[in-house]
């Protein structure tokens, strides 16, 4: 085993998070009824033409800048010609000779805490294909073209990873970049982030690359590692038996944990790439790149160092905050104005707001509760105006009941909590029971019991004698 070294290159396909497809105005949302998100353009009906979604260029440039790559000023869409039923026009619009992003690098930190730089060859734009569903009884294949035309960014690394673990680290890094920058939602179950691995082995010290196999369409970090490990061993076994490796495409079977040869749709295919005559070159100038650079947030790497050095946040905390740009943006604002210890306030954030956010409202966070309001709320806890247990209630009051921070604090403050609540109940009961009020006013003091009873119903567990005093106060005030 130690005679051999592994060489791995990864090709990652990530779906860009645009509302509409790359060349048509169909929706990209996941899970629709089959073929209900496939327009005439998506189907390639005779006479239809592709019109580029400008947002994909912006996202590709953002990615290129994030990995310190070269942004091509003049890039070209090319047709990749081959026949397959999930490819409506029997050509895929992709990029070959002039991709939008060239070069760049991704730094990973291995388990031994060593930093390693993996170079990126290129990243280019292309359209996704549809889906095939093979039936068993019907002896046919069903085609759903909803996914056809979804924008993809294909990110190709240099073959510089030496182990499955490194490959996973690289893949995770790329995943965090694209999700953090909101270039992609990175949802692997939905197929938004897919990985092909090119794997070969050679004797240690050998300069020449061995024959490689391509492991296709792996959708999880765990399976990438397993698939590569299996394949490496398979290749070693073959070579040690004196056999040869066939250059081919293989699929990973997650149930059996093996890779198997795929009768490829793309075997020995001449794709006859040529610039798509329906599309013109993408021209990007320095001004455009500069504009994007201005709005590009710092990447997780940079922010991690910042959070550690300036605020001494823990790894756990940082991981949570950096899982989403909206969260880190919010926390940054809070930390800017906070006079409370950063670690403490971040913990408050995690236990209250972070636990509340979900996919739907995370991007709306700033509109639901402001960082300033959150700080006020935490401050009130620190100053013991409100008990710690009420932190969640405070957040809910602002979030769901749309109250201001001061109103929420007022409501839950220790001093006034019970008093105000009970007084409100009493006034309410008085207003609704004029008859009884008149009876009391005419001298029937026994009717007090009625008011106390009604109040207790709404304020269970409160002190009845306290309530009685408050009732008398309120009735006498009329």
């Amino acid at each position, binding site marked *: 085993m130690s005679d051999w070294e592994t060489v791995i290159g990864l090709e990652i396909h990530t779906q860009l998070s645009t509302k*509409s497809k790359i060349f048509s105005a169909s929706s990209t949302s996941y899970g629709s009824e089959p*073929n209900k998100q496939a327009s005439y353009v998506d189907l390639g009906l005779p006479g239809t033409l592709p019109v580029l979604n*400008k947002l994909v260029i912006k996202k590709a440039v953002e990615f290129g800048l994030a990995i310190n790559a070269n942004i091509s000023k003049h890039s070209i869409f090319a047709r990749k010609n081959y026949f397959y039923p999930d490819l409506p026009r029997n050509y895929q619009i992709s990029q070959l000779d002039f991709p939008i992003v060239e070069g760049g690098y991704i730094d990973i930190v291995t388990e031994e805490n060593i930093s390693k730089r993996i170079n990126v060859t290129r990243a280019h734009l292309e359209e996704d294909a549809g889906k095939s569903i093979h039936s068993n009884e019907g002896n046919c*294949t069903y085609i759903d073209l909803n996914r056809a035309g979804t924008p993809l960014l294909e990110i190709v690394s240099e073959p510089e990873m030496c182990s499955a673990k490194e490959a996973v680290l690289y893949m995770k890094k790329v995943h965090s970049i694209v999700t953090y920058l909101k270039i992609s939602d990175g949802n692997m179950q939905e197929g938004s982030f897919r990985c092909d691995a090119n794997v070969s082995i050679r004797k240690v010290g050998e300069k020449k690359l061995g024959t490689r196999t391509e492991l296709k369409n792996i959708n999880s970090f765990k399976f990438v590692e397993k698939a590569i490990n299996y394949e490496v061993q398979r290749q070693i076994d073959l070579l040690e038996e004196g056999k040869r490796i066939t250059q081919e495409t293989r699929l990973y079977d997650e149930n059996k944990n093996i890779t198997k040869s795929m009768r490829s749709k793309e075997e020995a295919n001449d794709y006859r790439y040529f610039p798509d005559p329906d599309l013109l*070159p993408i021209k990007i100038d320095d001004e455009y790149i500069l504009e994007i650079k201005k709005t590009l947030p710092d990447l997780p790497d940079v922010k991690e160092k910042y959070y550690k050095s300036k605020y001494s946040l823990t790894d756990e905390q940082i991981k949570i905050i950096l899982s989403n740009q909206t969260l880190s943006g919010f926390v940054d604002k809070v930390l800017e104005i906070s006079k409370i210890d950063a670690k403490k306030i971040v913990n408050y954030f995690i236990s209250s707001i972070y636990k509340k956010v979900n996919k739907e409202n995370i991007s709306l966070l700033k509109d639901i509760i402001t960082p300033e309001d959150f700080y006020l709320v935490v401050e009130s806890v620190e100053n013991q105006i409100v008990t710690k247990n009420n932190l969640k209630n405070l957040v809910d009051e602002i979030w769901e009941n749309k109250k201001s921070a001061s109103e929420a604090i007022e409501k839950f403050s220790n001093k006034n909590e019970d008093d105000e609540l009970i007084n409100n109940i009493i006034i309410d009961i008085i207003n609704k029971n004029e008859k009884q009020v008149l009876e009391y006013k005419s001298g029937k003091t026994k009717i007090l019991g009625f008011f106390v009873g009604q109040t207790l119903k709404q304020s269970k567990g409160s002190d009845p004698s306290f309530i009685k005093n408050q009732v008398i106060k309120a009735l006498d005030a009329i």
Partner: protein
Amino acid sequence: MFDKKKIKDVAQLAMIAVDDNDLSYFSSEISEFLKTIEQMDAINLSEINPLYHAPDMSLKGREDEVDIDAKNDGINCSPNHNGKYFIVPKVID
């Protein structure tokens, strides 16, 4: 000479079945054609850049918006569908 083997290869790329009669026909037609275009070789083009579109134009894209009015009934044009899916002979991966 664009022989029958070559025609078979190209027909495969183009995904068009050809029977033996066709093979002869296409072989002679295409060989003839390639002869006539040999004149392209006569000129030195090393300093010339290819022209893809004329007149020159810049790429016009569109904003990232979904067209809610776009029709999705194109499946009805298919010669073999079940209303939900397009149907093809089973593909073996």
